[in-house]
């Protein structure tokens, strides 16, 4: 790198410090802000350059508008892109917490300690959970598993980060991925060494330095040859977040014979019943499978005002497998455009897509999926099932399947159904003594069974309850 540029940069960096409040960047996005973020994170030079390159690409890009969603595009110069991890205002007891929120917690069966942690009530040291965390970390470290904040990884494991970051979701992949690449400040890094089967579900809950949900999270997960990991993201508790725009990037790398299971429960603030407020969730999630590798995405999406999300698999290696299991619920004025891309490049690659959309109220839910079979992908197989369940007459459900086949030996199956929770079904349940709310929960859980079965046990139970809460009051 040019010495002169280096000097000017660092000079500017210092100058910058004096100009602004050190905990929060001023609104707006430019190269100086990116230098500021990188300096705050004490990042190596290459990381800064990487960010700047992403930013330059982003500047030339336009916000996409092909998705079946309508929203007021954010003013990207009116956002502050860095603030030091916020300490939530500490409350003295749960009495100070919004009673609505507490009611939801109760319905989800969240323990009192957990309720306090989520709402920021000061908790006396919870010995159990601390010791559990420590034991977990020690055990993981013994096996050579790295699980830490991405900003720590940039400093502590620069070789790994440098080797893999942006290889699955390139900096300039799309508008939101480019933005994330330029300004990400939070997220997880995980590396499973060769041949290691991670003995527990890794969840962000157990990651040290967790400071709420980042606005521009970046997750990088590498499963080395022959390893296995199951990763849980999100939690079923409602996340009230003041950041309206979320643009996360998740990259998964499954090397030869490795397997990654990635489960998400997303329950961000969806806006109120009139459709005011709520999070915009524009996420890029993608994994790459080398030879004999397997990646499974499972997601239960009930939150956010607008969702734009397509967890995808690049089946590069021969015999690799990609799976996508999704439940997306929209109620009131929520909008979701979600699905997957299965890119078959290697021979004998297989993919399965099971998508279950549930629309209620005035919401709009769309499935958008691409199955692409490359010319080399001899004997590729895909099975897709996309179902929609409608409640009421004011919601809309749409399916946009795209299929591109460049190899004649491919077998691709697509099934789609649209159904309504009928008066007949409800009356049948009612007649057997099951009240309407419980009947809806029963019908919806039955409809989603194939996806919920993919979730780790305790998550599945919570997800079921979450579906019930999300659809409360949606019929009659």
């Amino acid at each position, binding site marked *: 790198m040019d010495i002169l540029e280096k000097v000017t940069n660092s000079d500017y960096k210092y100058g910058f410090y004096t100009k602004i409040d050190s905990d929060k960047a001023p609104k707006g996005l430019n190269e100086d802000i990116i230098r500021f973020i990188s300096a705050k994170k004490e990042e190596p030079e290459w990381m800064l350059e990487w960010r700047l390159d992403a930013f330059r690409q982003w500047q030339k890009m336009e916000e996409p508008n092909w998705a079946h969603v309508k929203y007021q595009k954010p003013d990207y110069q009116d956002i502050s892109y860095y603030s030091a991890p916020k300490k939530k205002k500490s409350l003295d007891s749960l009495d100070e917490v919004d009673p609505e929120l507490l009611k939801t917690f109760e319905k989800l069966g969240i323990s009192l300690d957990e309720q306090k942690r989520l709402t920021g009530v000061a908790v006396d040291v919870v010995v159990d959970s601390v010791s559990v965390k420590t034991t977990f970390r020690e055990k993981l470290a013994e096996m050579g598993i790295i699980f830490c904040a991405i900003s720590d990884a940039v400093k502590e494991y620069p070789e790994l980060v440098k080797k893999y970051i942006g290889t699955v979701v390139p900096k300039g992949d799309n508008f939101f991925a480019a933005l994330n690449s330029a300004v990400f400040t939070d997220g997880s890094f995980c590396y499973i060494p060769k041949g290691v089967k991670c003995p527990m579900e890794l969840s962000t809950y157990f990651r040290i330095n967790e400071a709420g949900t980042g606005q521009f999270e970046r997750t990088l997960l590498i499963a080395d040859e022959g390893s296995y990991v199951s990763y849980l993201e999100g939690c079923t508790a409602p996340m009230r977040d003041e950041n309206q725009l979320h643009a996360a990037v998740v990259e998964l790398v499954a090397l030869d014979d490795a397997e990654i299971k990635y489960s998400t429960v997303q329950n961000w603030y969806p806006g109120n019943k009139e459709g005011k407020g709520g999070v915009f969730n524009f996420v890029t999630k993608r994994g790459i499978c080398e030879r004999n590798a397997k990646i499974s995405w499972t997601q239960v999406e009930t939150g956010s005002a607008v969702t734009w999300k397509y967890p995808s698999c690049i089946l590069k290696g021969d015999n690799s497998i990609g799976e996508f299991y999704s439940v997306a619920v929209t109620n009131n004025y929520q909008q979701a455009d979600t699905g997957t891309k299965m890119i078959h490049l290697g021979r004998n690659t297989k993919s399965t897509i099971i998508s279950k959309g549930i629309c209620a109220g005035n919401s709009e839910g769309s499935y958008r999926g691409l199955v692409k079979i490359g010319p080399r992908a001899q004997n590729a197989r895909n099975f897709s099932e996309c179902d929609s369940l409608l409640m009421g007459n004011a919601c809309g459900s749409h399916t946009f399947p795209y299929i591109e086949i460049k190899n004649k030996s491919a077998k691709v199956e697509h099934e789609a159904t649209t159904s309504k929770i009928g008066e007949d079904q409800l009356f049948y349940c009612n007649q057997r003594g099951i009240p309407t709310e*419980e009947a809806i929960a029963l019908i919806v859980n039955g409809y989603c069974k194939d996806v919920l079965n993919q979730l780790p046990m305790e998550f599945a139970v919570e997800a079921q309850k979450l579906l019930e809460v999300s659809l409360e009051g949606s019929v009659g």
Partner: protein
Amino acid sequence: MLKIKNLHASIDGTDILKGIDLEVKPGEVHAIMGPNGSGKSTLSAVIAGREDYEISQGSIEFVGEDIMDLSPEERAHMGLFLSFQYPVEIPGVSVTNFLKTAINESRKGRGLEAMPAKDMLKAMREKMAMLEMDKSFMSRSINEGFSGGEKKRNEIFQMAMLEPKLAILDETDSGLDIDALRIVANGVNKLRSKDNAIVVITHYQRLLDHIIPDKVHVLFNGKIVKSGDKSLALELESKGYDWIKEEITA
């Protein structure tokens, strides 16, 4: 048990029930017969509390209580059961899970604790044996891919599990072959007692060869036009419904 007085009901402005009077006492089996379109299924739906119908006149009392303002599930909790003519499918919900929910919601409605899983499984096995049902039934999605006979058997299975005070069997014989008819009828007969009552709604008399009614009513054009004992059913079978029509118009 059940006391219906001068019941009038309509749907979308069309009058269907035009003054029904019916009294069913504990221990009795009543058959309601009538040609298609006479209002048989409407009567069962209205008793069970389906909201699509408008009730302009009359009253329904069940176990001594006016149930006109109660929801279908409240009526079910009191011990009212309707075996559906066309049982609906609920994909992904197993027979076991459905019944567990139904039984425990009903118990909750009566202020009782949930039934222990062990007891429930034991009861399910007994009742399934009684109805000659295969064990694989329990894990199948309710009514999904069931044959007509399996659906009806499943209805009677649920009746056996829920132990209602009053069961209304709406065209339970339709879609059943002779063997299934016999099995279903035997099941119903085993559930008969001096404390409960059964109303059999049917188009044909053949179910009544197996489930012997105490009283038979003929429903025609929204009214009960004739009542009698079981011989009335046989008379209808041999003379057909036209005989009733002629008798009324004469």
